């Protein structure tokens, strides 16, 4: 479903990804772990098409199409979803407005009719209940004044409503207490299906106790230096990332 091939990317003049390759099959959950500054968030930005990151080499094939040629909104309508590490506050725009506009944009692209107000409300009610969110949140401005936990829940709610085929979670666990973490994981797990894949970017192993990955990759200095099963995450938890310094990248 997703083929990242030898991607080099830079932010400004600073090279960050230096030949990253990764293959994600349909229905798989891949965890990307690594120390701070290894390029984890840059990878998320590359996938979503953030204007601050420039890809200088390589391809990202999504269902065989090079998505690097698509605008961020085209990627979203094609079924790619990025759960932001730092969700943006948008004063004056309510959550329900954003959800409705986004859902209708995605549905129109799929050839589905717009949801009417009643069906939309029914859908949102169901999803907010799943994530233990209060209805009043719908009339609040997008992420404005939200706690860290509320912001992350909101990201997962949007993902629940938009039903992407590829979900990219950028440090969704950061700033969450254990209860919020469980709720967020529940929201993600409920979406797992044979034709939906996830790339879960995280610094810590604890999220992976709740969203159990099929594969774990270690990112260091812009490249994947080790890959394995879920047990690799535990190993990292025990040993930390210091060992990366002791062996040459790519080993």
């Amino acid at each position: 479903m997703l083929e990242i091939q030898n991607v080099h990317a830079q932010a400004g003049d600073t090279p960050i990804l230096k030949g990253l390759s990764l293959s994600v099959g349909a229905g798989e959950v891949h965890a990307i772990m690594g120390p701070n500054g290894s390029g984890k968030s840059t990878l998320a930005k590359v996938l979503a098409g953030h204007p601050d990151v420039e890809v200088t080499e390589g391809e990202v094939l999504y269902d065989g199409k090079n998505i690097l040629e698509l605008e961020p909104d085209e990627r979203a309508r094609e079924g790619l979803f990025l759960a932001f590490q730092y969700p943006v506050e948008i004063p004056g725009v309510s959550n329900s407005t954003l959800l409705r506009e986004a859902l209708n944009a995605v549905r129109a692209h799929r050839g589905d009719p717009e949801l009417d107000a009643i069906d939309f409300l029914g859908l949102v009610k169901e999803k907010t209940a799943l994530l233990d969110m209060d209805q009043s949140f719908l009339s609040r401005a997008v992420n404005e004044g939200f706690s860290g936990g509320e912001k992350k829940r909101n990201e997962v709610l949007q993902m629940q409503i938009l039903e992407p085929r590829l979900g990219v979670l950028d440090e969704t666990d950061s700033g969450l207490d254990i209860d919020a973490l469980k709720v967020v994981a529940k929201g993600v797990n409920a979406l797992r299906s044979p034709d939906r894949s996830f790339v879960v970017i995280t610094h810590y192993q604890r999220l992976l106790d709740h969203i159990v990955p099929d594969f774990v990759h270690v990112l260091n200095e812009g490249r994947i230096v080790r890959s394995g099963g879920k047990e690799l995450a535990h190993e990292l938890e025990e040993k930390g990332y210091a060992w990366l310094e002791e062996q040459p990248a790519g080993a």
Partner: protein
Amino acid sequence: MPIATAPDTWLQSFGRLSEERTDPAWLSELRQQAMHSFITHGLPTTRHEDWMYTNLQPLAARNFQRARAVTTPAPGTLEGHHLDALSGPRIVFVNGHFDAQLTDLEALPEGVAVAPLEQMLRETPERMRSHIERLVEAGDHPFANLNTAFFEDGVVIRIGEGIEAPQPIQVVFVMKSWQNDVVEHPRLILLAEPNSRATVVERYEAQGPGDRFTNAATRVDVRAGARLEHIRLQREGSSSFHVGMTHVRQARDSSYENVVVSLGGSVSRHELELDLVEPGASCSLGGLYVLGGKEHVDNHTVVHHRVPHCTSEELYKGILGGRSRGAFTGRMVVHKDAQHTSSSQANHNLLLSDDAVADTRPQLEIYADDVQCAHGATIGQLDEEQAFYLRSRGLTPMAARNLLIHGFASEVLETVRDDEVRTLLERVLESRLNVDVT
């Protein structure tokens, strides 16, 4: 040197008007004085402090003719103006003249009177006198003089004591012509008697091509304990000239909520002047201007806190695209005796292009010592992180931009209490954004 104003054209036009009308003697005299003063003083240049952002030269260069009443279009031909968006009573003027066919006052509640000024002047001229004279008392103002000299019709609205009008009352001025350079000078008188409650929507629209000039003057009295919501929507189009003056006097414990929405024009200027003359009065002033192309809007507001224990809140927001220019001047005058005044003022501008210009000028004059006053102004652009966030959810660049602009504007529109009116304003904002504000 003031700007000369094609005096011959105005004087000829004035002469014809005087022949056509049968005004009471006091009004004829008032008009003569006003005309004389207008011709003598001409129009101010941008060196005049109150006019530094607005060049009146293009307006002065025109030979404006009085707009004539036209045969009423068949009902429904004013579509696109959302006249039906508000279900309450409405009074409509076409080219400044009362239009009985488009007017619908059936829903007018008991205790609320709405009538064309022309009719009131014929039937009860003496009762109108003090209201008419008030505008001149406010000072020697070129456009007030022009309005006094030339006004032919307008509206008188009186909300009776203790009356609560459940639906907004709509006053619509539509300029409709196939010729260039026509002018209307509507005069409006709004009286909110003690302890009354109402929403009044004052609208300026235009239909068909042609450059027009609207020169409107509105006098508002909010008496003790009354609560008046007053919305002003101006959208005659990018080639129009518009000058509006709104003078408000507030009595004890009254509340006045004003929102001015200006959707552009070649030159569009609105002056809002409030006098808080008895304790306990409070006002909230909202403004939203949305411009594109080479449009120009100038908002000028003055609030006089003359007595203790009054509050004023003001928030004006500008959305400026193309090569447009939006100016805001907000004067707050806290007079010597106005202790315990609480006042806030803010003006925020969103520039959508590199060539748009925002001018903002807060002016606080405080002569009392126990007051709370705050003000602030900003000029910025759309936030790229916010736009990216919306696009990452599937919104096209245009949809993301419009949603962000809407979000920016909503802080002002949210202050509108009446649901129908707020929805109407959101609709006209949306259609404005979809046309040419880039």
